[in-house]
C-alpha cells in the first residue's frame, strides 16, 4: 500500500436487514482494500454476500437493508455516510457498475446513444453534441461494429453479448476509477463470456481502472484478478494474491472450493461443490460459520468467531492460524 491511501478501503462493514423476525446480518465485519488499477476477484457460494458488498460500495443497498457499521472510503474519504445526492455524483463518475444481465440492464425505450450521452452529460462538462461523438467512440472501443450507425439503435436490436458491451461502455464512459462488476458474464452464452472478460480486462488495464469482479468462474479469476477475496456467510473467509488463493489456499473453505480441482492440465471452470449448504442468514452457527461443514473443525471453532489472521501469503479467518506463525498446516 506504500503509505498512500488505497483507492477503495472497506473496513468492518456490517450490513443489516431489519425484518419482522429480527435483524438479519447480511455482511459482518467485511474488510478489504482495492488499490488503484487493481483487480480484486470475489468468489463464494450463492448467498455469501458478494452482490451485497458491491451494492454497499455503490450506495445502492435495497431498503430495508442498511449499513449498520464500519466504513467505506474512496481515496481516503468516507462515502458510506453521504447524502443521496452527494453519493449520486460519485456513482457513474468515480465508481461504475456492471450488472449481471445485459438483457435487463438497458432501458428498452431509449437508444443506446441516448443512454450513453445522458450518462456523460450528467457527469462531464460536455455538450450533447460532444457527448454523442464520444458515445460513438465508446461503442467503437467496446467492439460494436459500425458504431456510428448503431448509435441510434435500441437495446433490443443488439444480441446479448453486444448489449453487455454497451453496458461496459456505459459503466466506463464517465471514466470512473473503480468498476464494480457483478457476474458480468453469467447471463451470457458460454462462447462469448471469454470475449467480454477479455474486453473488460483490457479496457481496465488501458484506463487504469480498478475493478471488483464478482464471478463464479475460477478460470476468469485466475486470468484476470490480482487478488481474490473468498466470501462465506457474509464474511470474508480468505483474501490474498490470486495464485496463492487458487493454488495453495489456507482456509479450509477455500481449500474445499478449489479442492476438487482436477489434474493441472484441466482448467477449473466452476467452483467445486462442498458437502452441506451455506447456512441461512437467520441461522448462522456460533463460532466459525463454516464449522458444521469443516473437516478441520475443532473445539474452539464452535465457540469463537475467527477474524482474518495472517496465513502465509494470504489472510484467512480460521483458528488454524491462531498461533500467529501463519504456518500452513492444512
Amino acid at each position, binding site marked *: 500500500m506504500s503509505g498512500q491511501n488505497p483507492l477503495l478501503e472497506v473496513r468492518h462493514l456490517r450490513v443489516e436487514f431489519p425484518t419482522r423476525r429480527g435483524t438479519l446480518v447480511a455482511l459482518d465485519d467485511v474488510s478489504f482494500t482495492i488499490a488503484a488499477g487493481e483487480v480484486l476477484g470475489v468468489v463464494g457460494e450463492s448467498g455469501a454476500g458478494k452482490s451485497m458488498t458491491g451494492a454497499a460500495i455503490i450506495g445502492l443497498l435495497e431498503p430495508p437493508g442498511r449499513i449498520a457499521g464500519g466504513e467505506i472510503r474512496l481515496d481516503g474519504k468516507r462515502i458510506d455516510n453521504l447524502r443521496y445526492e452527494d453519493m*449520486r455524483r460519485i456513482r*457513474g463518475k468515480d465508481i461504475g*457498475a456492471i450488472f449481471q444481465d445485459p438483457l435487463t440492464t438497458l432501458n428498452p*425505450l431509449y437508444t443506446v446513444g441516448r443512454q450513453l450521452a445522458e*450518462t456523460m452529460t450528467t457527469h462531464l462538462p460536455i455538450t450533447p453534441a460532444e457527448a454523442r461523438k464520444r458515445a460513438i467512440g465508446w461503442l467503437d472501443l467496446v467492439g460494436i461494429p459500425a458504431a456510428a450507425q448503431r448509435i441510434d439503435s435500441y437495446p433490443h436490436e443488439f444480441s446479448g453479448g453486444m448489449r453487455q458491451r454497451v453496458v461496459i461502455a456505459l459503466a466506463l464512459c464517465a471514466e470512473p476509477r473503480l468498476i464494480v462488476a457483478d457476474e458480468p458474464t453469467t447471463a451470457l452464452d458460454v462462447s462469448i463470456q471469454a470475449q467480454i472478460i477479455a474486453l473488460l480486462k483490457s479496457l481496465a488495464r488501458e484506463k487504469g481502472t480498478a475493478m471488483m469482479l464478482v464471478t463464479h468462474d475460477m478460470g476468469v479469476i485466475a486470468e484476470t484478478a490480482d487478488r481474490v477475496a473468498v466470501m462465506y456467510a457474509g464474511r470474508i473467509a480468505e483474501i490474498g494474491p490470486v495464485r496463492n488463493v487458487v493454488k495453495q489456499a489456507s482456509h479450509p473453505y477455500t481449500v474445499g472450493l478449489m479442492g476438487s480441482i482436477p489434474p493441472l492440465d484441466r482448467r477449473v471452470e466452476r467452483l467445486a461443490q462442498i458437502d452441506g449448504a451455506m447456512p441461512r442468514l437467520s441461522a448462522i452457527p456460533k463460532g466459525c460459520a463454516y464449522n458444521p461443514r469443516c473437516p478441520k473443525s475443532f473445539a474452539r471453532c464452535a465457540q469463537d468467531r475467527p477474524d482474518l489472521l495472517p496465513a502465509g501469503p494470504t489472510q484467512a479467518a480460521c483458528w488454524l492460524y491462531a498461533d500467529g506463525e501463519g504456518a500452513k498446516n492444512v
Partner: protein
Amino acid sequence: MFAFILSRVLQSLPVLFTVALISFAMFAYVGDPVAIMLGQDFTEAQRQALVKDLGLDQPFWVQFATFLGNAVQGEFGLSYRLSRPVADLIAERAPATLELALTAATLALLIGVPMGVYTGLYRNSWLSRFFLTFSLVGVSLPTFLIGILLILVFAVWLGVLPSFGRGDTVKIGWWSTGFLTWTGIKALILPSITLGLFQLTLIMRLVRAEMLEVLRVDYIKFARARGLPNRAVHFGHALKNTLVPVITIVGLQLGAIIAFAIVTETVFQWPGMGLLFIQSVNQADIPVMAAYLLLISALFVTINLIVDLLYYAVDPRLRIGRGQGAH
C-alpha cells in the same frame, strides 16, 4: 404504418357489424314502433301506410341492409318520440357529452398520473396514505351517490355551483360549447368531477402499481448506478416505462367515460347523449337507441386504434422487427 392502420380498421369491422346487427334487432323485436307512432286512434289504412313507409313489410335482411346503408351515411331515421331526424338529435347532444367526457378525462389524467407517481415514489409518506384512502372512496362509492353528495354540498349548502344543466353555451358552427362562458364552466365542474373521479382513482392506482413495479427492475437500478439524477430516473426512465399499460387503461376508460356519462347526465340533467339515451329507453325510441349504440361502439373502436398507434410511438420494440422478424 398505413398498412397497420388499415389492418386494424378491417379487424374492427366485424365488431361494428355485430353491434349494428344487435341494434337493428331491437327494431325487429323490441316494442312496436307502429303502435307507438300511431297513438290511440288510427285506421287500418293508416297503419298499413306507416308499415310500408317504415319498410317494415320487407324481409329482415333487406331491412338490415337498408339500415346499414343509411347508418353509414349518418342516417338513422326519425325518432319515434320527437319525430325529428335522429342524426340531428345526436348532433345537438353530442357536444355536451363530449365536452363533459373530455373535461372528466383531462381531470383524471392531470391529477391521477402525478398522484400515482407521487404515491409510487413516496409510498410511506402520510400524503400517499391519504391519497390511497381517498382513492378507495372514488372506487367504492357509486357515481350517482358522488354526484348527489357534490350537489348537496356545493349547490345546496354552499350554493356556489349549479346543480343541473350546462349553463350558457356558445355556438361555433353546429357545435355548442360551454367552455367559453363563465356559467358554462361552472356548470361543468360538478358533473366532470363526478364522472372522472372513478377514472382518476383508477389511473392513480395503476400508475402507482406500475411505478412500484418498474422502480424495482434492473435498468432503473442501473440508471441509478450510472449516477443519473432522480428526476431523470423517475420521470425519464421509470414513468415512461409505465406508459404502455397506462395508455391502454386510459384509452379504455375514455370510452367508458363517454358510455357511462349516462348516469352523470341523469343526475345533473346534463343535456347530452346519455340523457337522450335514457329518455329514449323509457319510451322505446328504438332509432335513437340504435344510433347511440352504434356511435358508442364506433367510438370504442376509434379509441382502440389510437391506443395501438400510441404503443407504436412509445415502445420501439413494437416498431421494428416486423420486417426483420429477428429478435
